[in-house]
């Protein structure tokens, strides 16, 4: 069966990646692809189609903000919804990420149902 929604999870913590995959498995037909840092995420998002990306900010090799900037610089990725999931709870961090093109900004520790709700809204699912 082909996936109805492909979601990219860019997060350096395997624990967080597993938790997000676990939460998003509840979306019927969703397929999750994991990337362990910003560079890995950029490679994957450039070579494949994704309906949404969940991106952490603090990551080795390339951070989440740089990745968002590069994604929004690509014409074919301008409309892809981006959800930031980070430990950075300051107002200016949120504003910076949203100004760069993120659609939603969630802080850790995350609530799985909140992530699910945000993803459902952005993918316009019931």
């Amino acid at each position, binding site marked *: 069966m082909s996936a109805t929604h492909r979601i990219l999870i860019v997060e350096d913590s395997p*624990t967080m990646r*597993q*938790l997000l995959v*676990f939460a998003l498995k509840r979306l019927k037909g969703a397929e999750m692809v994991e990337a362990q840092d910003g560079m890995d995420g950029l490679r994957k998002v450039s070579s494949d189609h994704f309906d949404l990306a969940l991106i952490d900010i603090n990551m080795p090799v390339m951070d989440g903000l740089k990745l968002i900037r590069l994604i929004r610089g690509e014409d074919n990725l301008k409309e892809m919804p981006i959800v930031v999931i980070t*430990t950075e709870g300051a107002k200016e961090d949120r504003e910076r990420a949203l100004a760069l093109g993120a659609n939603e900004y969630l*802080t850790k*520790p995350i609530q799985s149902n909140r992530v699910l709700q945000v993803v459902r809204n952005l993918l316009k699912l019931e």
Partner: protein
Amino acid sequence: MSDDRKALFGRADEFMSLFKRGAEFSKELIAENERLRRKVLELEQHQNFAARDDGEWDKLRAELLMRIENLEEERSNALQRLRQLEEENHQFARRYVEVEEENNNLANLYVASFQLHSTLDLSEVVKIVIEIVINLIGAEMFAVYMLDEKTNRLEAVASEGEAAESFPKVPLGSGIIGSSVESGETFCGDPAGSDDYLKPIVCIPLRVQDRPIGALAVYRLLQQKDGFSPLDHELFTLLAGHAATSIFSARLYSQSERKRNTIQGFIDLLTK
């Protein structure tokens, strides 16, 4: 017979047929009119009779009152059932929220437990403990202490928010950290935060059965987190048991690997 005469007779037949149908329809109308007239007469008679007879009015009124009473009872029952359904609906909604929350909590606990037991490498285990404390509990500054069995002191081997060397060595049984490890009791204080390294806001003793392994001391939470949730307490309990077991297993594995390599070295010397 000429064609004109034939056409004339044809039109006459048509006219006759039409006339017959009209006559039948008129008869039907007259019959219906008669039937309705009789019905009106009947109703008028019935009305006149009822108007004249008080008993008949009373009977009619009693019937109507009973019908009204029945309808009101039915309405009351329907309203009661509606209220019951609404209450049941609220209960289901509340239960759904509870189940969702429980589901999320179980997912977090499952992932934490799964990750802790996914490796036998001590540095990896410590890294996973740090990930859990940051991502699932939401701590900003904390330290993982290990017990040095030779000196009986707890020493920070990994940390977040401050270098591990900044945290003091704590004798077993001394202060919040030492006492927590010795007694096996988790300490949970004011979540507002602490700058005193000897006074963490949370201290989770890491023990395998009765054997102390170390401790996890949290000093400050992330700014968006304003307190501890029931899930945090579940995670403290999980870390106290599972992190300790994972650390203990990784240490044993590392020791046995070292011994195996030494023995293998001797065997190689003797056999080559």
